[in-house]
């Protein structure tokens, strides 16, 4: 495949055609914050945290879904980007009910760490305080919609790694919600294999193993990567 040359933050880089800016940056050791991206599953550009500036357009582009091209000039950190990343995070917090202190993911949450990292010390928007509930019908796994950021990592993992297709998204805008099958209680789902990969993939405390208490949800995402690698490199013979 043809290689493309580009610069990211002034650094000369060459990447294979078809590579995303995010991949190219990571290979070059440049970190771009992400939330909906999960190694091994397709990207959809939902969270807008990986926004970068590309010379020639005034639009901000999501690094995880933008492909590299010859002569591309990418900037990953600027005051403008900083501003938008913070704003995005604040909106995520304001949209649902995040009470970190009592959350299963406290201390192991990607949303929380990003908020720290981006210096989000307060939220400028009014909290929506929506009324969302929990789905505790599954025997071993639980979902708290209050903490869901609609990144759809769980949905993609469920469809493309496990192949069960249980998790879906229903609704529009802020009222969107992750559902099981045709919006049934999770415990009634006939397609769910109880593999727990959705829980492993969730960046926040929205999905958890039942029985966990505050700060107990530590996820082992290496398992997901292991599966993807094994499949793509044909390490499994089926």
């Amino acid at each position: 495949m043809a290689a493309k040359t580009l610069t990211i933050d002034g650094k000369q880089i060459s990447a294979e055609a078809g590579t995303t800016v995010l991949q190219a940056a990571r290979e070059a050791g440049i970190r771009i914050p992400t939330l909906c991206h999960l190694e091994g599953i397709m990207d959809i550009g939902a969270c807008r945290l990986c926004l970068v500036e590309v010379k020639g357009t005034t639009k901000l582009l999501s690094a995880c879904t933008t492909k590299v091209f010859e002569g591309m000039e990418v900037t990953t950190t600027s005051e403008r980007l900083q501003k938008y990343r913070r704003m995005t995070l604040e909106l995520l917090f304001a949209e649902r009910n995040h009470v970190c202190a009592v959350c299963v993911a406290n201390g192991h949450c990607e949303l929380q760490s990003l908020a720290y990292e981006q210096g989000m010390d307060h939220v400028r928007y009014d909290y929506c305080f929506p009324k969302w509930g929990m789905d505790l019908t599954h025997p071993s796994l639980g979902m708290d919609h209050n903490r869901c950021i609609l990144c759809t990592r769980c949905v993609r993992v469920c469809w493309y790694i496990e192949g069960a297709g249980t998790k879906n998204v229903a609704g529009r805008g802020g009222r969107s919600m992750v559902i099981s099958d045709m919006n049934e209680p999770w415990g009634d789902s006939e397609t769910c294999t109880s593999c727990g990969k959705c829980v492993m993939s969730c960046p926040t405390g929205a999905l958890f193993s039942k029985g966990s208490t505050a700060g107990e949800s530590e996820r082992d995402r290496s398992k997901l990567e292991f599966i993807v690698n094994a499949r793509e490199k044909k390490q499994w013979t089926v």
Partner: protein
Amino acid sequence: MSKRIIIDPVTRIEGHAKISVFLDDAGNVSDAEFHVVEFRGFEKFCEGRSFSEMPGITPRICGICPVSHLLASAKAGDAIMAVNIPPAADKLRRLMNLGQIVQSHALSFFHLSAPDFLLGWDAPAETRNVFGLIASNEGLARAGIRLRQFGQEIIEVLGGKKIHPAWAVPGGVRSALSAEGAAKIRAWLPEAHQTTQVALGLFKKVLETHERETQLYGNFPSLFMGLVAPDGTWEHHGGRLRFTDSSGSTIADQIEPRDYKTVIGESSEDGSYLKSPYYLPLGREDGIYRVGPLARLNVCSRMGVPKADEELRNFRSFGHGSVTSSFLYHYARLIEILASLEYIERALADPDLSSQDLRADAGINSLRGVGASEAPRGTLFHDYTVDRDGKLLKVNLIVATGQNNLAMNRTVAQIARHFLKGTEVTEPMLNRIEHGIRCYDPCLSCSTHAAGKMALHLQLVGPDGSVVKDVVRD
């Protein structure tokens, strides 16, 4: 005929203990009410959450006894899963509760109460506090602060964090006691013992010269409630409920905490947002009971450890049957510290504490779970009703300060009756009312201003319900 006024939460001044003193037609004190903040809102807020989250959530109810809520909550969770938790987990939880008793009682005695009876009731407020105590008796004050730290250290080596350790979970605990942790506690024990002995000696001296206070600070017949072991020994985390009356006779014994509703009534008064529990079979008037150190020492047959048992014998000489003066809550607290130290020493010798079998796992096997534990201030109940999936449908919490509410009212009335001349609210009277409340060590943020006097908002209410006098002391 006297009249009650309706207390609107809005009239509460932030951080002030609110007190109403009711006068009859002749201008004498007929009754008093100490308004306790209740947790109604919190109970509602938990509905719809998972029961397994509760040990993480409920310690946030109150920054003063998070450990007690943690343990009661985990216990309620055990009941919902219908499991017997591993023995090591039970022993570890007990150890943490002992640490909590020591730290909380030390705070109450040295920081909050001792300045009153050691520096004098009417010593200026600027010095009648722990700093004043440091100035006048530095050795004692520092030792008291260290004793509290000792209790906190136990909580920390087990739970990792001083304030909100979501360490106990339904089914057990998350981690064992490390060898270093055990060594640290063991090395600190002799000093803790010594401080306790000094404090005991001191308080017994105080008692010799405080006959009047003993008579005045909440000395009245009432019932007492606490957990006891099957053989009647003092209990703090486990066991069943026992009620005794002021003559010392047991009137109800070995009541399973989950059946508390057969013995405890919760009256909710019109226009009031408090619940005042009482002993159900006797009704609200005669069923008034006290909980906490004084009650636990009254209901138990023995402490179960030698040094504390010796003190208990002396303690009992202050009553005919039960010890009925709330001023002796202080003495009871010191005896409980002593007993806790002895039990901690015993626990440390138990190899089980480093066991790795710490957590039982199970689904929902009971749709209701009650967890009871002795918080430093008295018996704490967490009563959860869940659906098949473990989602909370109803939460009922009964806290110590609520249970002591009626007794606190009576204590305030007793003191006011004695000190109120006409409608003149004097500083000495406020100081004594403040101490009357402190005897119960109520878990209110306003009562724990370590530095300085308690902020009070006192209203004298006339027979027609009108406020005759409104005194705010910051």
